[in-house]
């Protein structure tokens, strides 16, 4: 008996297929690449050479899928939001990433990367975090694998996200304050990169979004692509079709959005809507709407759209949601934006908070404020009555209770 020889396909599908996927050289259109100092070259190059091979290994896929199932609790439900649909006169489905272990989509990526780190022979993990969600997801998988974990977090964020700092510590991670620059997410990322420069042999850097030098954006996207893979299966069961009319997700660096969009990128009949944080308003000077306010440049090792001064100094973004205030977006999203494949919308703090509270009242779900940005588009976007709109509910709102309390005077 002969078994057919199958070429192994990496998680997320074969490389180089489709015009919105990463090219062999690490680019999405003109965005992406690996703009890194030579000190990082050996590590990034090792990852570049190995990541697809590792992600194609059946035993790796099995381990990844098993953990997603038994530990994370996947598949996450695709929930038809009946009352919300009635209110907005369209068919709204919520992809419930908020029900994952640790409360957000971030863990899909950290599970994948910790397994990758093990295959690469690394025994020490570093990560950056803003709100602390990615830090918690990283500390969690490090506990799971018994690996040393150092999380960099801006000094200012440490002060405003105390519960997540405590969680990381309980999980055995060391939280190191980033004291440089503006002492928030971008500086925590700088510090993590510096740590990697200083520890080139034993350390793997688990980046928390679809950003950074190639191959990070593609690797993170592939680990997150389980979101859209499941949407297609679940929608087929519920509606008899795999493709919705629209997929909607919020964008910080762009990992939940990348995962939500991934399997629809080449299905031109599926509309893609990316939602950015407008903060106090696009023109207020306190915003994180990168597609509108950003210009092409280099941040954290990749060429992408980012918010900066005319002189090329990276500026500090603002959003009420700590997970969306990154001054750039992942290179895939810059390409989706400039090519016109995706529609970008921006939502202010107030609009997001209102939509968050509305979901509580209509569906009994308290969403993360990041995810509330995606929910807020229904107020000003008209969909057809029979349209199927899938929204990524990227995380739950427990971490945001204080912000909700302050905002609404609860």
């Amino acid at each position: 008996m002969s078994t057919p020889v199958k070429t192994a396909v990496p998680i997320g599908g074969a490389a180089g297929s489709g015009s919105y996927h990463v090219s062999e050289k690490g680019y999405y259109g003109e965005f992406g690449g690996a703009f890194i100092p030579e000190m990082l070259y050996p590590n990034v190059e090792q990852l570049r050479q190995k990541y697809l091979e590792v992600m194609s290994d059946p035993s790796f896929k099995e381990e990844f899928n098993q953990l997603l199932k038994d530990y994370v609790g996947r598949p996450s439900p695709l929930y038809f939001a009946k009352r919300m649909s009635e209110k907005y006169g369209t068919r709204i489905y919520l992809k419930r990433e908020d029900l994952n272990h640790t409360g957000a989509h971030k863990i899909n990526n950290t599970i994948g990367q910790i397994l990758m780190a093990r295959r690469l022979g690394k025994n020490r993990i570093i990560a950056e975090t803003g709100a602390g969600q990615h830090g918690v997801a990283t500390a969690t998988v490090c506990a799971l694998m018994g690996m040393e974990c150092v999380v960099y977090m801006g000094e200012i964020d440490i002060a405003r996200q105390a519960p997540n700092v405590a969680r990381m510590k309980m999980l055995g991670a060391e939280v190191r304050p980033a004291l440089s620059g503006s002492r928030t997410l971008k500086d925590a990322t700088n510090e993590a990169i510096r740590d990697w420069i200083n520890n080139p042999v034993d350390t793997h850097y688990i980046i928390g979004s679809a950003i950074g030098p190639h191959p990070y954006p593609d690797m993170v996207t592939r680990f997150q692509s389980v979101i859209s893979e499941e949407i297609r299966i679940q929608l087929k069961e519920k509606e008899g079709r795999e493709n919705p009319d629209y997929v909607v997700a919020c964008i910080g660096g762009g990992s939940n959005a990348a995962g939500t969009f991934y399997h629809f990128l080449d299905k031109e009949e599926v509309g893609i809507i990316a939602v950015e944080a407008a903060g106090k308003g696009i023109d207020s000077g306190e915003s994180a709407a990168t597609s509108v306010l950003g210009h092409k440049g280099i941040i954290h090792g990749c060429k992408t759209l980012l918010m900066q001064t005319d002189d090329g100094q990276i500026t500090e973004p603002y959003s009420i949601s700590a997970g969306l205030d990154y001054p750039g977006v992942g290179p895939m999203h810059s390409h989706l934006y400039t090519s016109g494949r995706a529609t970008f919308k921006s939502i202010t703090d107030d609009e997001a908070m209102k939509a968050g509270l509305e979901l509580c009242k209509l569906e009994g779900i308290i969403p993360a404020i990041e995810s509330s940005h995606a929910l807020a588009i229904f107020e000003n976007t008209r969909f057809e009555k029979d349209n199927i709109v899938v929204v990524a509910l990227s995380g739950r709102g427990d971490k945001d209770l204080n912000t909700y309390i302050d905002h609404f005077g609860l």
Partner: protein
Amino acid sequence: MTTNRIHQKLREDKKILSIYFTAGYPDLEDTVPIIENLQESGVDMIEIGLPFSDPLADGPTIQESSTRALKNGMTTTRLFKQLENIRETVHIPLIIMGYFNPIMQYGVENFCSRCAETGIDGLIIPDLPVDVYEEEYKSLFEKYGLANIFLITPQTPNERVRFIDSVSDGFIYMVSSASVTGAKNTFGAIQKQYFERIHNLRLKNPQIVGFGISNEDTFLAATELAKGAIIGSAFIKFLNEKGKERIPEFVNSIR
């Protein structure tokens, strides 16, 4: 292949002492006086740091000096303005060290052309990778007679060192250890092995060691086999503590 002040200087039969400082630090208008003072003190070459908000490859000392320079109002345009007449008084090689984003925003060709007009001899752009440089910018740098300097580290394998040597023009910047910039007091066995390994490759470009050079001992250790060494963080600390008037004291303490 360009022939500029860097090549001439490297042909001299001596060990090169190069000093890095951040433009616009401690005060905005200190850039030119510091350069002149360094030349008078006998320094062979100067790296002028173009400050950046997010200097990934730098330790706390250079980061803080960059933050301060930016607060002082330093910009790329300002730097070229300050350096406008620098070649009337300064004849040693001048190199600009900066991250790629500010250069991209200024326009790479525009930047190169301003460098040429000003009398800048070379550039060190740590986050511009060798392959991108080769494909997109090499001809531009050559057109304006600018040497582009690349980094190697103890982790860089011989094969890649040779590749970097083949596209380099001027010298190779040997990062002393796996680390961001910052002063160290001694070099260990690993550094010595690394210095020997690179020396034995007999590269076409001379090597200058940087990162972690802080005093006479580290300077001597670094230049035992290499052509020269670059001091950054230790000099910036000195500037901050003692002031620019006392620069000769610093230089004399090194050699």
